[in-house]
C-alpha cells in the first residue's frame, strides 16, 4: 500500500508539472501567458504622493476659503487644481496628536499619541509612510516643527533628536536647522533638493512646516515680516515690557506676550495694565498672515519644482493644515481648545492630471478620513485599524457611498494645562525673561496646583466636542476643575468662568461667540448622547500619557 501510494504520488507530481508547462506554452489565455502581457496597473505602482502639512494654519486665512487679504496666491492656485474640502475637522488642537490621526486614520485615544511624553511603543506604528513602504515607496520627510523631531531628556536635561514615533517609517527623515533667531520653524526648503535628487523614484514625501507657530513671524525675513503691519505701529508689549532692559530685536510677536493677553487685556503682575485696541489685534493677525504669506511662497516654489521635474502629472498632492489657531476670537492668541478656530482645517487633494479640479466638497469630513482616502485612491486595501472612511465617493459624486461619520469628534487631549505644566513650567529653567519677578514667584504655587490636580497625566479626560456643519457641542464635565487650573485665570488673577456645556450655531455664528445651549435643549441632548456614545466606545489610551517606566523624553513645548 505504501509503495503503491508513493509511486502514484510521484506520477501525480511529474504529470502536474508537465500539464502546467503545457498550459503555459500552448494556451494564450492561460494565467501564465496573461502575466507576461501588460495587465491594468494599480495606481500605487506609479503614483507619487506628497503630503504638505502646514501647522497652525487656519483655513479661513486662505483665499481659497474666502480670506480677502490675498496672503495665499500659491495655495489658492493649488486649490484651483484640487478638490477642496470646506469642512475638514482635526481631532485635536495639538500638532502631534492631530497629525497622528491624519497618518493613522485613528482617533487620538486609539493611536496613543496622547501626550508630549509618550514612548514609541505606546503609539500606533502603522502610519501612512509605513503602509506605503509595504508597497515599495521610497519615503522621505522634511519637517520644521520641533514636535516632530525634538525631545527633552528629563534625565540628562538635554535636547535630543530621537529616531522614534514620527520618523520610524521614513527612509530619509530630514529636519530644518535653526535660523539666526534660533528657531527651526522655517520653510522646509530641503524638500526641494530631495525631490530633485529622487525624482525618478516612486516616492512618498512629507513636507511639514511649523512657521506659523508663535512667535508669529519670528522666522519670516523682511520685507515680508512687516508686510501686513498697521502703519506707525509700536507693539504694546514693547511699550509695557515684561522685563526692562531686554534687547529690542523684532523676533515676531513673542509667545510670552501672548501668554499675558486674555479677553482683550494685557496683564502684568496679575493686573490688566493695557486694553488692546483694534490696531493691536490687527498687528498680531498681520504677523500671523506674514507667516502664511511666506509659507505660501515656499508652497509655490514646491509646486513649480514639481512642474519643472515633470512630476505633477504622476503625483498626488495632499495639502492640509494640521490644526488652526485662535487669533483672539476666544480671548487668547494660541491654540489650546476645541473651537473651530483651532480644529477647522484646510484640506485639498490635487489628483494627477488635476482630475476634478475646482471641485469643492461642503460635507463635513474628519482628519481620520485622510489616510483611507489616500489608500483608496492608490488602490491599496484600507487598513482595518483606521477609524475613518475614504472620501473618494464624495470626490466621485457619490455622497451616499461615503461611509464616514456625520459627526466629527474632537478631544482636548491632552489638556493644554497638562502640557504647560510638563515642559513650559517644570523643565525649562529660563522662564525668568518671560515673566515678571512677581509672576515667577507665584508660578511655583501654580505648578504645585497643576501637580496636585492633574499631575502624572491622571487628569479626567472629559473635555470633548462633537460637530456637524450646523452645530458644535463642547462638553466639559469637569468645568470647575478647568476653571481652577486655568492658565488665563492664573495670569490674570481673575476667575473667568468655564462653561460645562457650550452649544454653537455654526451657520449663524461660525466664530462660536454665543453659547446657545439653553435655547436648544433638544439639540444639546441629542448631540450629548452621540458624544458620550463615542466617548464610551473609544475609552482606550485616553489617560496613558506617561511612559510606564524609564526616562521621559518630552517634546519641548510650547
Amino acid at each position, binding site marked *: 500500500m505504501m509503495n503503491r*501510494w508513493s509511486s502514484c504520488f510521484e506520477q501525480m*507530481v511529474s504529470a502536474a*508539472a508537465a500539464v502546467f508547462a503545457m498550459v503555459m506554452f500552448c494556451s494564450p489565455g*492561460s494565467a501564465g501567458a496573461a502575466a507576461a502581457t501588460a495587465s491594468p496597473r494599480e495606481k500605487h505602482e506609479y503614483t507619487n504622493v506628497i503630503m504638505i502639512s502646514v501647522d497652525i494654519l487656519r483655513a479661513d486665512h486662505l483665499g481659497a476659503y474666502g480670506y480677502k487679504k490675498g496672503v495665499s496666491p500659491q495655495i489658492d492656485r493649488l486649490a484651483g487644481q484640487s478638490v477642496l474640502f470646506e469642512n475638514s475637522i482635526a481631532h485635536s488642537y495639538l500638532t502631534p496628536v492631530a497629525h497622528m490621526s491624519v497618518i493613522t486614520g485613528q482617533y487620538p485615544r486609539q493611536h496613543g499619541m496622547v501626550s508630549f511624553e509618550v514612548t514609541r511603543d505606546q503609539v500606533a506604528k502603522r502610519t501612512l509612510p509605513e503602509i506605503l513602504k509595504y508597497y515599495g515607496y521610497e519615503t522621505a520627510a522634511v519637517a520644521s516643527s520641533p514636535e516632530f523631531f525634538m525631545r527633552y531628556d528629563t534625565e540628562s536635561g538635554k535636547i535630543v533628536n530621537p529616531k522614534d514615533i514620527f520618523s520610524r517609517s521614513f527612509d530619509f527623515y530630514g529636519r530644518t536647522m535653526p535660523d539666526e533667531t534660533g528657531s527651526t520653524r522655517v520653510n522646509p526648503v530641503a524638500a526641494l533638493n530631495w525631490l530633485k535628487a529622487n525624482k525618478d523614484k516612486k516616492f512618498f514625501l512629507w513636507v511639514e512646516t511649523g512657521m506659523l507657530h508663535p512667535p508669529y513671524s519670528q522666522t519670516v525675513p523682511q520685507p515680508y515680516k512687516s508686510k501686513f503691519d498697521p502703519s506707525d505701529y509700536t507693539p504694546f508689549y514693547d511699550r509695557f515690557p515684561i522685563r526692562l532692559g531686554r534687547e529690542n530685536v523684532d523676533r515676531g510677536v513673542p509667545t510670552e506676550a501672548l501668554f499675558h493677553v486674555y479677553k482683550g487685556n494685557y496683564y502684568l503682575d496679575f493686573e490688566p495694565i493695557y486694553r488692546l485696541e483694534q490696531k493691536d489685534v490687527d498687528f498680531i493677525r498681520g504677523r500671523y498672515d506674514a507667516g502664511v504669506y511666506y509659507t505660501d511662497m515656499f508652497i509655490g516654489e514646491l509646486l513649480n519644482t514639481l512642474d519643472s521635474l515633470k512630476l505633477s502629472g504622476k503625483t498626488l498632492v495632499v495639502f492640509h493644515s494640521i490644526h488652526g489657531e485662535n487669533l483672539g476670537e476666544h480671548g487668547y492668541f494660541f491654540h489650546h481648545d476645541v473651537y473651530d478656530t483651532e480644529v477647522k482645517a484646510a484640506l485639498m487633494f490635487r489628483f494627477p492630471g488635476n482630475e476634478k479640479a475646482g471641485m469643492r466638497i461642503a460635507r463635513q469630513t474628519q482628519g481620520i478620513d485622510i489616510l483611507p482616502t489616500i489608500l483608496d485612491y492608490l488602490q491599496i486595501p*484600507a487598513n*482595518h485599524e483606521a477609524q475613518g472612511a475614504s472620501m473618494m465617493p464624495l470626490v466621485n459624486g457619490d455622497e451616499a457611498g461615503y461611509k464616514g461619520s456625520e459627526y466629527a469628534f474632537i478631544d482636548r487631549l491632552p489638556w493644554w494645562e497638562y502640557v504647560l505644566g510638563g515642559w513650559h513650567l517644570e523643565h525649562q529653567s529660563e522662564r525668568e525673561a518671560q515673566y515678571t519677578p512677581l509672576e515667577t514667584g507665584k508660578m511655583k504655587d501654580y505648578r504645585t496646583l497643576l501637580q496636585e490636580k492633574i499631575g502624572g497625566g491622571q487628569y479626567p479626560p472629559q473635555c470633548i466636542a462633537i460637530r456637524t456643519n450646523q452645530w458644535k457641542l463642547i462638553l466639559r464635565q469637569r468645568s470647575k476643575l478647568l476653571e481652577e487650573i486655568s492658565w488665563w485665570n492664573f495670569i490674570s488673577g481673575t476667575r473667568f468662568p468655564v462653561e460645562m456645556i457650550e452649544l454653537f450655531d455654526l451657520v449663524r455664528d461660525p466664530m462660536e461667540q454665543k453659547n446657545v445651549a439653553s435655547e436648544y435643549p433638544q439639540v444639546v441632548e441629542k448631540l450629548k448622547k452621540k458624544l458620550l456614545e463615542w466617548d464610551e466606545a473609544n475609552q482606550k489610551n485616553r489617560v496613558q500619557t506617561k511612559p510606564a517606566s524609564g526616562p521621559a523624553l518630552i517634546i519641548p513645548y510650547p
Partner: protein
Amino acid sequence: MNEKQNEQDVKLINRREFIKYAAVGAGAVAATVAMPGFMMGNAEAAYLSKLPMKYKDYNVVFVSFDALQAAHVGALGYQRNVTPTIDAMAKKGFNFTNTISVASWTVPASMTWFTGVYPSEHRLTNKFSVFNPPNNNVLSNLKKLSPELVTLAEVLKQNGYATGGFTGNAGVSGGFGYSQGFDEYFFEKGKFGSMGVSIPKGLEWLRKNKDKKFFMFLHGYDMHGQNEPEGGFDYRFVEKGYDKKYTGTPKEQEALREEGLANGKTELRDADVQFWRAIYDEKIQRTDARFKKFLEEYEQMGLMDKTIFVLTSDHGTEFHEHRRFDHGFSLYDELIHVPLIIKLPKQKTGKVIKDQISSIDVMPTVLDLLDVKMPENAAKQLRGASLVSGLKGKPVAKDVFFETDYRQYTYKRGIQTKDGWKLIYTLEDKSRELYNLKKDPHETKNLVDQEPRKAYELEQRIFAHFKAIGHDLNAKQWIPGLNPVYDSQAKGAQKK
C-alpha cells in the same frame, strides 16, 4: 535534529506535497479533468462522469474521528498502515486532501459542520465562559446555541429524516446545543467517550430506524489525548528501547499540554515525541478497526447502497511540531488540516480532490447531495459553498478562514489562501505570523518582516472577513486568561 526527527519530516513533507501540488494552480487542476488517464483510467473517468449527484431521501452517516491529524491518515500520505478502513473508503469515494477546519478544537470546530457558520457566529467558542479565580470562580456553560441558527439535523428532521447522534460527549456534549434537531443524542456526561461505546449505541438505534431515511452522527474520542483504550495500550508501535518516561495516559497528556500553555513550550525529547506518535497510531489503528466492524454490521443491515458517508475530523493535534502538545491553542497545519472523505451510494471509484476547501463547506454539500433546501428563515445562514461541483471535477479551491479563542488563553484568527500563503493574527498582542506554505510547509519561518505587503493584505482580509460576518474584531478588547477546559481543572468553582 536526529535521524528520527528527519524521518518525521519526510512524512510531513509527503503530506505537504499535496498542497504544493494543488498550488500549481487552477489551470493544472482543470487540466487534470481534461486529461483522462492522468489520475485514473478512462473507464473510471467515464464512471465518475455518469455518477449521479442528487440523492434525495438517501441516508447520511457522518463520522467524526475526533482529533485525527491529517498527517496520520494513509489516504493523505501517512506511511504507517493505521487507517486501512478509512483509506479504503477514501479510495472508493472523494478524498479532499486539503480540507482546513474552521477551528483547532472540538467545541467550535464541530458546530460549524452542523450550522454552516463560523465559530464566531455560532458562538460555541469556549466551554467555560467565566472563570477568574479567586474572586469570580463561576463556571458558565454555553448551554444554548444562538436561537436564530438552524442545524443540519433540524433541517433533515423537517424533511422527514430520523436523526440520531452517538458521541463521546465532552466538546460535542448535548449540553452545548449539539443535540439540537436530533431525535436521539447520546453522550455520557463527564466522559471523553470512545466509539467503543458510541458505535453500539448507534447500531442499536439503526436497527430501530433502518427502514426510515436517517441522518446519523457518529463520533468518538478514541484518538484524543483524553481517551485511553479499554484494557490499556499494547504499545504496538512503540520502539523497543524507549525508557518509558511516559506511558500514554490522559493525565500525562494533560500535563504536557498545560506545561506548553504555561511556558510557551513543552520540554520533550525526540524519543518522547516518537513515543507519543506511536501511542497515537495505536489509537488510530484501534479506532479504524472499530469502524471496520461498524461498517460490517452496517452492510449486513443492507444499508450501504442507500447511504452517503462523510468521514472527517474536527481538528488535528500537535506532537511538538511547534514545541507544544495537544490542540486548541494554535492554528498551525497540524491542528487545522483534517481529512474529509465523501462516499456516495454505490460509488465504486473515487478521486483525490486537492483543492483547498473548508469544513464550513460540509453542510452545504450534504444538503446539496440530498437535494434538501434550507428553510426559508435560514436561507442565508450558510457561509460555505457546496462542493458538489468539485465532485464533478470543477475547481472549488478557495481561501479559507479559521479561528480559536481556546480557553481565552489566546484569541487567534487566520487565513490560508489557495495559493499557499497563511497569516495567523493574534488579537491580544496584535502579533502576526506569515508563512509561505509552498516553501515552508512546517510553518517555521515567519515572513512578516520580509513580506510586509503580503502580511498587510492578508491581515486586511482577515479583518474584512470577520467584519462581514458581523464581528468587528476592533470593537472588542481581547484580554487573555486561562480558563479551565475540564471540570477537574476548575476545582472549587461552582457551576451556574
